[in-house]
Structure formats: C-alpha cells, structure tokens
C-alpha cells in the first residue's frame, strides 16, 4: 500500500498564489484538444474528405463546362464548407460532456467562457483552417481563376471562424441530446445563413476579379461579433446542460 502523508489544506491566499491565469488555462485546453485530435486524426480527416467529395460531385452531376461551373463555384464551396464544419461540430463538446471534463471545467474556478473560446478556437484550427487551405484546390477544379484562389482561402478562413463560433452555441445547446446531429443542424443552419450569403458573395466577386472588400469586411464583422458573444452564450448553454 502506498504511504499516505498528511496534507496541508491550503489557505485561500496560498491557493490564489498557485492558481493559473484564465489565459494559461485556455491555452492548456487548446493544446489538449489539438493533441487529442492529432492522436485521433479521423475527426480532422472526415470533414476534409466530405468537402472534397461534395465539391467533386457537382461537376459530375451538372456539367464539366468550366464557365458554368465557375458560376456555381461560390455556392458549392460555401455550402460544402458549412456542411463539413457541421460534421465536426457534433464532437465539439460531446466527449467532454460524457467523461465529466466539462463538469471539471465548470468547477475549475476559471472562466468557462475562456475555456469554451479555447475549445472553439481548436475546432477552427482543426476544421476551418484546413478547409480554407483545401478550398483553392476545389475552387480551381470548379473553374476559379488562379488569381482568385488566395482570396477564396481568405474568405473561407474568416467565414469558418464565424461558423465555428455560431456552431459552438448549437453544439452546447445539444450536449444532452442523444443523436443530436439533426437538431444541431436545425439550430445552426438558420444562424449561418448571413455568413453563407456574404461569404459566397465575397467569393463570387473574387472569382469575377472585382473588389470583394466590402463583403469580406461584413464577414469579418460577423466573426468579431461571434468572438465577443458566442463563447458567453455557449458557456451559459454548457452550464444549463450540466444541470
């Protein structure tokens, strides 16, 4: 049997002295989620494979004519990115809720909002960013000119930030729901419509060689609004789901 030393119970002051900052705690949550994802890479690969398959299916089911594909490319890219992001959203909180990790976060004394923001950030790094990097390939296959490909990456990258944040609210609200994927889609898709509209508009303008700055700025404003409000709402939803 192991030896049992008598511990000293910390006073409030000494406890505060060793308590980590909210940012350090958020950083740990981010690193933990990234490490877990790289040890279980199917969660990263699945949305990317889905995105590649969906964007490939469109030329096969419509027309191989590049001029016509170029017209539908913005919509195809954005709908595919949205649905791919939704696939991964289901896992954002599910495992942590099941094994009690979310409970421990809520009882950690740290700001749950920061911890949720860190988890959402990890989700974007593992889903939104890879999608943004893959989008030019899909865009090129759909007839987008080479000059527009960097712009496609930028618009999808900013748009998926907003999508991850909106999605985090839906994922938090459906934590306790068995097979909540459908409910998650029903909750998130309507909220994602403005992102879809301005995102595909920005991509459309980029492909046409016109200035897409205004649409991109609106997309950026939505992402900023999301960073400000979504973690608060998601944290409140997580607390409710823990009851």
């Amino acid at each position, binding site marked *: 049997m192991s030896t*049992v030393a008598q511990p000293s119970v910390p006073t409030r002051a000494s406890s505060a002295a060793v308590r980590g900052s909210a940012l350090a705690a958020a950083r740990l949550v981010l690193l*933990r989620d990234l490490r877990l994802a790289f040890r279980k890479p199917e969660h990263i690969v699945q949305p990317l494979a889905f995105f590649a398959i969906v964007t490939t299916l469109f030329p096969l089911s419509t027309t191989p004519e590049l001029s016509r594909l170029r017209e539908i490319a913005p919509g195809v890219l954005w709908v595919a990115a949205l649905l791919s992001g939704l696939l991964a959203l289901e896992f954002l909180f599910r*495992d942590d809720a099941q094994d009690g990790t979310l409970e421990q976060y809520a009882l950690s004394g740290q700001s749950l909002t920061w911890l949720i923001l860190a988890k959402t950030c990890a989700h974007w790094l593992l889903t939104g960013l890879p999608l943004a990097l893959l989008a030019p390939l899909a865009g090129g296959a759909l007839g987008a000119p080479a000059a527009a490909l960097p712009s496609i990456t930028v618009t999808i990258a900013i748009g998926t930030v907003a999508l991850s944040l909106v999605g985090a609210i839906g994922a938090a609200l459906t934590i306790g729901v068995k097979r909540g994927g459908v409910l998650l889609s029903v909750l998130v898709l309507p909220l994602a419509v403005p992102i879809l509209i301005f995102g595909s508009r920005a991509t459309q303008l980029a492909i046409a060689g016109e200035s897409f700055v205004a649409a991109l700025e609106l997309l950026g404003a939505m992402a900023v609004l999301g960073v400000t409000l979504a973690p608060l709402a998601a944290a409140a939803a997580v607390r409710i789901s823990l009851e």
Partner: protein
Amino acid sequence: MSDLSLRAENLHLWRGERHVLKGLSLAVQGGEVLQVTGANGAGKTTLLRALCGLLHLEEGRVLWGGNDVQQDLPSYHEALAYLGHEPPLKADLTACENLHYWVGVRRHLSEAQIREALQRAGAAAFGERLVRSLSAGQRRRVAIAGLLLMTAGLWLLDEPTTNLDADGTRLVAALVEAHAKGGGIVVAAVHHELSISGEHLRRLELAA
C-alpha cells in the same frame, strides 16, 4: 485545526417529477468527514452536485465559510475538488498528460508534482501509459492523483472506491482521513462505508 466550514440549509431540489432533496440541511467543519449513504436513487449524487453549485436549487442555500456560495462561485470552486462517477480522463492521453491538462487548468503544475501525486495514489507505475490501456481501477487511481493535485480544502467524492481493489479502498480511506487530519473537509457519497476513525467521521443517510 482549520476554520473551514460547509453548511447547507433547507435544500429543496426537484428532478422532473421527483422531489429529490426535501429540505435537507447539513453542517461540516474542517477536520470532519461526512459519509453520505442511501439506496440507489436516494439522491446522493444530486446532493453532491448541489453542494458543488452545479445544480440550481429550488430553495435553500449552500454556505462556505459562512458565505453563500452563489455570491462568489469561482472562489468556492477554487476551494473544492469534485470527483464524480467517471474519472474525467481521456483515453488517448497518458495518465501524466491527463493530469497535466485536467488539473493544470486550475493551477500551475510541475512534472515532479504530478509524479508525486501518482506515487501517493499508487499509480506511479502506469503514469506514462495511455489511459485506454488502463483498467477501471487504475483509472480511478489516476483520478485520485488528480484529486490530490488540486490541493483543495473541500473534497466532494462520489463513490470514490468504485472499481478499486481492497488495497485501493484502504488507500482512499487513508487519504480521506489524512485530508481531514490536515484540516480539510470531505463529503463522500458511498455504498460501502470507508474505514475511517470515529473522531473524524460523521454520517448522513438519505431516504429513497
């Protein structure tokens, strides 16, 4: 002796149609262990979660050091360590990594501190193994190491000896007793009472 105190006054809580906590009150001082017993469904887990502040009470309040915990939940949470039915461990991380990411969210931890806690919990031998390769009892020992690392004054333990062998059960009893001797408070929901000396022990039986 520490001046820690936990008091619950007139707790009422409903789960759906069931009135689980019916005006329950309790008071525990530093240096005491409260063992909560009762049949399945009597509300032991609900009581612990209510004491944590995870559940919204219909009526009543929980006081820590004489202050209503709802007035400053983060400080209260900083002072407590809760161990539920399932150890909050990730199968794809090692025991050490799990403790680093789990308890590290609360406080800065060094590798030496993690190793020492694993040693005290009898889990040093499998600190570098992935949790998916550990037995349920070994996982429980890793979770107990996490509990020790939190350095909290108040321990709220839900069936802390689940899946442990006789040696592990004795270890938990010894750790709980040592925590109480150090001035801490332990509230443990148990099916089989921990073997703890009478001077520290108090009992509460919940009716189903």
